[in-house]
C-alpha cells in the first residue's frame, strides 16, 4: 500500500513539474542567505526580486526565481548548484557571490552545461577555462590597480599594511594585485594574514601597527573588516582603511560603528551617482520598497537578472547552451551598474567607483575608468 502511494506521489510530482515547465522559465539564484556573508546574499536577492517585478516575463512566459542558500560555505555552494540543475531543472543560475564559492559551483555548472552568471565574484580564476561561467562585474587585477593608485595618489600613502584572508581566493588574489601595483608605484607593504571567521586580530594588528603604516588595506569581506577596524582603532590606529568590494554591507557600519569612518573601498556602484538611466530607475524602485539607497550588490543582482533575461530573449529559446552563447555575446547592455559588455572570456569590462564611509554613510568619492 505504502509503495503504491509513493509511486502515485512521485507521478504527481513529475506530472506537476511537466505541466508547469510549459509556461514558466526557471532561473536559479544560488546565494549565501545565512552564515558569514549572509548580507551579500540578501542584497543580491533584493536586486533580483526588484528586476523580476519590473520584468516578470520572457518569450511570453513567466519567470520563476528559485532561491537556494549556500550558507556561505564552499561545499554547500557546489551542492546547491547540482540541486538547482538536477532537481529544479533551471535553465540558468544567478550567483554565487564569493569567488571561492563560485569556483566550487562553477565546476558543476560547467559539467552540466548550464550558464552560471555571477553578480560579484571578481577573482580572475572564476571564469578561467570555463565555457559556462560568466559575470557582470569587473575583475580583481583592475580593482587592485584602482586601489593601489588611489592609495598612492589620493591618500599619499608610502607604506601599507595589507591584510589577506587566506581562506578566500578573492582576498588572496586581490591582495596580490594591490601589492604588485602599490610597490610598482614606489610604496612599501607589510603583509599580514588571517582567516574567514577569525574574530581576534590583535596580534596581527600589533605587528602591523609597529611599522606605522600610512594605510591599512584589507582585501577580505565585511564581517572581518568591521571587527578588524574596531580593534585597530582600539590599538590606537587613526589613519585610513582601504578595502575591496567585499566591504560594502550595512553590517560593516552596524558592527564597526565609528571605527569604520575613514574606510575607503573600491566598488561597482553608488546610488547617488548611477551611471545609466536604468540605474536611476532601479534606485527609485528600490528606495520606494526599502526606504534606503541600494547597495552595489543589489544593483549587481539586478543586472544579473537583466542580462540573463536579455540573453534568453536574444537566444529565442530556453536551451541552456543557447542562452550561454547569448550571455557571452552581450554588447553594451544597459544595466544599473553601467553598460555591460561580456567578452568571450566571460568577464565584463566596467568602471570602478570609490566610496568612503563618512559618519556611518557610504559616500561617493570618485569613478575610475578602465
Amino acid at each position, binding site marked *: 500500500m505504502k509503495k503504491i502511494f509513493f509511486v502515485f506521489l512521485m507521478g504527481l510530482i513529475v506530472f506537476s513539474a511537466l505541466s508547469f515547465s510549459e509556461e514558466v522559465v526557471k532561473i536559479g539564484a544560488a546565494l549565501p542567505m545565512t552564515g558569514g556573508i549572509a548580507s551579500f546574499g540578501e542584497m543580491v536577492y533584493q536586486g533580483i526580486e526588484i528586476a523580476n517585478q519590473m520584468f516578470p516575463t520572457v518569450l511570453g512566459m513567466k519567470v520563476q526565481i528559485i532561491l537556494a542558500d549556500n550558507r556561505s560555505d564552499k561545499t554547500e555552494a557546489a551542492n546547491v548548484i547540482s540541486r538547482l540543475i538536477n532537481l529544479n531543472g533551471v535553465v540558468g543560475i544567478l550567483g554565487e557571490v564569493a569567488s571561492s564559492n563560485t569556483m566550487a559551483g562553477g565546476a558543476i555548472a560547467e559539467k552540466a552545461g548550464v550558464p552560471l552568471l555571477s553578480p560579484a565574484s571578481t577573482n580572475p580564476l572564476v571564469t578561467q577555462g570555463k565555457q559556462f561561467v560568466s559575470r557582470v562585474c569587473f575583475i580583481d587585477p583592475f580593482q587592485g590597480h584602482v586601489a593601489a593608485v588611489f592609495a598612492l595618489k589620493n591618500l599619499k600613502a608610502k607604506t601599507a599594511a595589507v591584510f589577506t584572508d587566506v581562506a578566500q581566493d578573492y582576498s588572496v588574489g586581490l591582495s596580490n594585485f594591490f601589492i604588485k601595483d602599490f610597490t610598482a608605484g614606489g610604496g612599501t607593504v607589510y603583509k599580514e594574514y588571517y582567516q574567514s571567521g577569525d574574530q581576534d586580530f590583535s*596580534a596581527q594588528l600589533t605587528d602591523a601597527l609597529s611599522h606605522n603604516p600610512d594605510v591599512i588595506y584589507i582585501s577580505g569581506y565585511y564581517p572581518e573588516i568591521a571587527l578588524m577596524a574596531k580593534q585597530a582603532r582600539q590599538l*590606537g590606529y587613526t589613519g585610513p582603511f582601504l578595502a575591496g568590494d567585499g566591504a560594502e554591507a550595512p553590517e560593516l557600519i552596524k558592527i564597526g560603528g565609528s571605527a569604520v569612518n575613514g574606510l575607503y573601498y573600491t566598488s561597482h556602484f553608488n546610488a547617488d551617482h548611477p551611471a545609466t538611466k536604468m540605474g536611476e530607475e532601479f534606485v527609485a524602485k528600490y528606495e520606494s520598497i526599502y526606504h534606503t539607497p541600494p547597495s552595489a550588490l543589489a544593483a549587481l543582482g539586478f543586472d544579473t537578472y537583466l542580462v540573463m533575461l536579455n540573453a534568453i530573449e536574444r537566444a529565442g529559446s530556453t536551451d541552456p547552451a543557447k542562452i550561454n552563447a547569448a550571455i557571452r555575446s552581450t554588447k553594451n547592455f544597459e544595466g544599473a551598474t553601467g553598460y555591460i559588455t561580456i567578452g568571450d572570456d566571460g568577464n565584463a569590462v566596467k568602471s570602478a567607483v570609490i566610496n568612503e564611509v563618512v559618519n556611518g554613510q557610504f559616500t561617493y568619492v570618485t569613478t575610475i575608468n578602465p
Partner: protein
Amino acid sequence: MDANLNSFVQNFFNSLSLGGLYALIAVGYTMVYGILRLINFAHGDIFMMGTYFAFYAITLFLLPWWLGFLVAICITGLLGYSIEKIAYRPLRNAPRISSLITAIGVSFFLESFAVVVFGGIPKSFNVYPKFFSEMLVMGKIRIPILTFITIIVTAFLFLFLWVLLYKTKTGLAMRAIAVDIPTTSLMGANVNNVISITFIVGSSFAAVAGILWAMKYPQVQPYMGFTPGLKAFIAAVIGGIGSIQGAIVGGFLLGFLEIMIVGFFPGLAGYRDVFAYVTLVIILMFRPTGIFKVYSEQKV
C-alpha cells in the same frame, strides 16, 4: 621602550584577553564532562544562544543592560536544564557514543533554530555602556578594560565553583556522582537534581562567556559558537578534561599560544587554527590526561 618589547607586552595583554574567554567557556565543558563523562558539543551553541538572549532582552524588551545580561544568564541556565532533561537524560544509561551523537544533534538543532528564529544575518552587539569598550593607555601599550573584567569575572566564577563543589552538600553530591552514579543515589542523593544543577551552572557560565565575547567581538550570528566552542574544548583537553583548574590553565595557554605564534611569526597568522589543533593532537599523543591529571578520587 623598544618596539619589539612593546609589541611583546601588547601581545601579552592580547593573550590574556583571549585566554580569559577561552577559559570561561572551557569551564562549562569540563564540568559536564567531569560529572557525566559527556562531551557536551552543544556547549558552543548554548554560548551562542546566551548572547542572543542578552541581545534581545536589551533591544526587544528594553531592559537595562545589567538586568538584560542577568535575565539572559538565567534563561540560558534554563535552556541547559531543558537540554539535559529532553536530550541527555533519556540516554544516561545508553552507550556513551549515543549521548555524544545526541550532543552533536543538539548542536545542529540550536544552530538551525537560531537561523530560523533570529535570522542568518549577523547582528551588532552594541547594547552595553561605552565604558566596557574603553582602553587603558600606558605609553604605547593599550589594554581594553574588558580584559580586566574578563579576568575578574573568571576568577569570581572559579571561586563560586570552588565553594559550590567543596563547601556545599550539592557539591559533595556532584563529586560523588563523578565517581559512581548508582552508589551516590543509594546514599540518598537526588542524582537527577544534581545533574540538572550541573547543567544550569555550566550553561550560565556559557552565557557569561558569550556576553563577554560579544562585547569584545560585537557580532552575533548563529554559527558564532562553533569555533570558540571547539577552541575551548581543546583548552579543556590541554588542561585535563574534567579538571576545573585544568580548564582555566588550558584556556590561558591556548590564548597565549594563538597570539604569540602570530606575534612572533606574522606570516603564519592564516594558519592559527592549525596550531590549536596540532597542540590537541600532541597532547592526546603524549599526555592524553592533559596537564592536570584527574585522579579518580577528585574528578570534576
